[in-house]
């Protein structure tokens, strides 16, 4: 049994951004167990100050190359609430469709390219292409549909163009939507194969109880707006996000940490599943049953399984949404106008890795205060809580085995470190 152990993973791979895992066990005692965030700060909130409100979504989408659509949508919702803009039903549907596209793209990337190599015993998707080309081809085929869906609505996936305050500057044609609908329907075989692939994989059995937070509405499995809900009970309007996220600084991280009713909480696919599972599409519920995921699950490695379930859900919802849009016909319309030029608003969306908040004050058309709270920053304290519970359980393992378990744990959360590093504290005065 190893009583003394040092682990130092410099720039953990297959995650977005730069983080280090540092563990120090001396004579059986855990002296240090940190996920260091060493990403260069980018100061987005300060960069938003003084800029015209219609530029905010274009700038803040640059926070993240993976969840650019979610940042843009959340930013637009914050501006719209501040200025009394009421988007049309068509705009709401198109935004939701765009978010489904991004959720699919991000989850497929995470499950197949970042997590699956660990489960299939290879170092990367590039190596996987040598050992099992069909799995890689399937991932790329599905990702291609998801990316094309985003591009049809926003102009391109990474950093959408056509999303504007109150609506869109460009609308997809019926032909484009019809073709995407056919491709999404054809993706069902790949969805079945994805469920089968994960069914055949053994995930670590670690468990730790914690609090889970997600957006919630009565109508559907919520991705935009709604209220904040907790597995500890209770729900809160979005405007009270600060009392949930309660960010605080720690010295080893350029991203802030968060705590609510316990020492830490989790956001993301598993939290959404636990809080909103009854509103999933029947096919997604069937996938959950096939993969053995239940609402009582407290195993963070199962986040990837919850993502697979959301891949099924988002595909099915995207198909129904396109059909609704086509039934109604795409109507040419200008973005809805602003009712005023000053105000304050909080926007919230479920990004692939959890709840994202943008909070702006706008004065005479210019952003005068900004605060963005990023899912990964909310998860950091919980990841470290898991690490500190996991390490003592595995003191009998070799350092390599321990490193592998910890890397897989951090990866399971799908952290988006570039996002979280600059998204820190701001006082909205």
């Amino acid at each position, binding site marked *: 049994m190893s009583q003394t152990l040092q682990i130092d993973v410099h720039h953990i791979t*297959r995650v977005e951004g730069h983080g280090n895992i540092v563990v120090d066990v001396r004579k059986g005692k855990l002296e240090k167990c940190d996920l260091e965030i060493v990403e260069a700060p980018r100061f987005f*909130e300060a960069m938003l100050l003084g800029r015209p409100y219609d530029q905010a979504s274009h700038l803040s989408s640059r926070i993240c190359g993976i969840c650019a659509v979610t940042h843009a949508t959340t930013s637009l919702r914050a501006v719209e609430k501040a200025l009394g803009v009421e988007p049309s039903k068509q705009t709401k549907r198109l935004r939701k469709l765009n978010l489904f596209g991004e959720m699919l793209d991000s989850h497929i990337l995470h499950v197949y390219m970042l997590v699956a190599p660990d489960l299939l015993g290879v170092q*990367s998707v590039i190596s996987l292409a040598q050992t099992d080309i069909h799995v890689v081809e399937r991932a790329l085929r599905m990702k291609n549909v998801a990316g094309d869906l985003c591009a049809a609505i926003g102009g391109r996936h*990474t*950093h959408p163009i*056509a999303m504007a305050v109150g609506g869109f500057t460009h609308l997809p044609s019926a032909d484009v939507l019809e073709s995407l609908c056919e491709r999404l329907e054809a993706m069902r075989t790949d969805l079945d194969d994805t469920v089968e692939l994960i069914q055949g994989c053994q995930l670590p059995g670690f468990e730790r109880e914690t609090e889970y937070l997600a957006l919630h509405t009565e109508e559907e499995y919520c991705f935009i707006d709604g209220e904040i809900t907790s597995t500890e009970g209770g729900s809160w309007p979005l405007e009270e996000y600060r009392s949930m996220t309660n960010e605080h600084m720690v010295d080893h991280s350029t991203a802030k940490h968060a705590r609510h009713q316990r020492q830490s909480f989790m956001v993301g696919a598993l939290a959404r599943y636990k809080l909103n599972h009854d509103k999933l599409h029947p096919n997604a519920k069937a996938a959950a049953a096939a993969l053995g995921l239940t609402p009582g699950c407290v195993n963070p490695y199962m986040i990837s399984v919850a993502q697979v379930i959301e891949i099924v859900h988002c595909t099915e919802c995207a198909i129904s949404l396109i059909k609704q849009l086509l039934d109604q016909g795409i109507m040419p319309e200008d973005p809805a106008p602003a009712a005023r030029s000053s105000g304050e608003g909080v926007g919230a969306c479920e990004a692939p890795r959890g709840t994202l908040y943008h909070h702006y004050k706008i004065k005479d058309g210019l952003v005068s205060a900004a605060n963005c709270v990023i899912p990964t920053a909310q998860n950091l304290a919980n990841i470290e809580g898991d690490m500190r519970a996991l390490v003592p359980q595995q003191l009998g393992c070799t350092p390599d085995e321990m490193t592998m378990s910890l890397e897989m744990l951090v990866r399971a959360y799908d952290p988006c470190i*570039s996002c979280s590093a600059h998204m820190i504290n701001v006082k909205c005065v």
Partner: protein
Amino acid sequence: MSSTKPKIAFFDFAGCEGCQLTVLDLLQSHMDLLNAVEIVQFREAMSERNQDYQIALVEGSYTRPSDEVRLQAIRDQAQIVVALGACAHLGGVNAIRNAHRLEEIKTYVYGEKADVYESASARPISDFIQVDAFIPGCPIDRDEFVRAVKSLLQGNVPDIPDYPVCVECKLRETGCVFLFGKTCLGPITRAGCGAICPSFGVGCEGCRGLIPHPNMASLREVLSENGLNETSIQAKMGLFLTNQIATSDMEA
């Protein structure tokens, strides 16, 4: 794996990693690229790390003195260093901070812990190491990336257009956005993106950088005639071009 294939490594500094994701995305349609090169380092996608590479593709801006050491190590190893995307090429949106006092920006975001984290002005990587080629844009254009890599593999410098975005709007027959009451930086911005933003109803934001000898004064006048006040003109031009405008103003 064949040792004769050119070895490529990806590196990232301050940025959103959207350009590297665009590279991952283009594998959907260009799997054959993997037959032409050997990728030996790509932290976002792979655990393998090999320091033996000939071509380095660098995403992100320089933003802190410790970045210089990493950049120099990349330069020492690689035969060809490519700046990938607006952050590496121009400083990107990160350079917005350069128009403000850094202390104020740090305090706004990190409060009393402002000094815990190392940060400096955001610069293109070419301010610190010699760069052999650049692939512009925020994000990079997929097709242009493939063309650029093909050129590099043939021993040529990628042919990046030095004419303005307006040319591509004409070629695409996209109506000028000024005629629809919008404003655009197309007349001063390097083409090569296929004028994608105007084709989706949004004026060019300048992410690919300035053309040689841009007529800045004339464009400012046009923006003003089209209803933008000084704050809006600065905000529009400063989104991606803060560093380049500071340089061109000094030369003017």
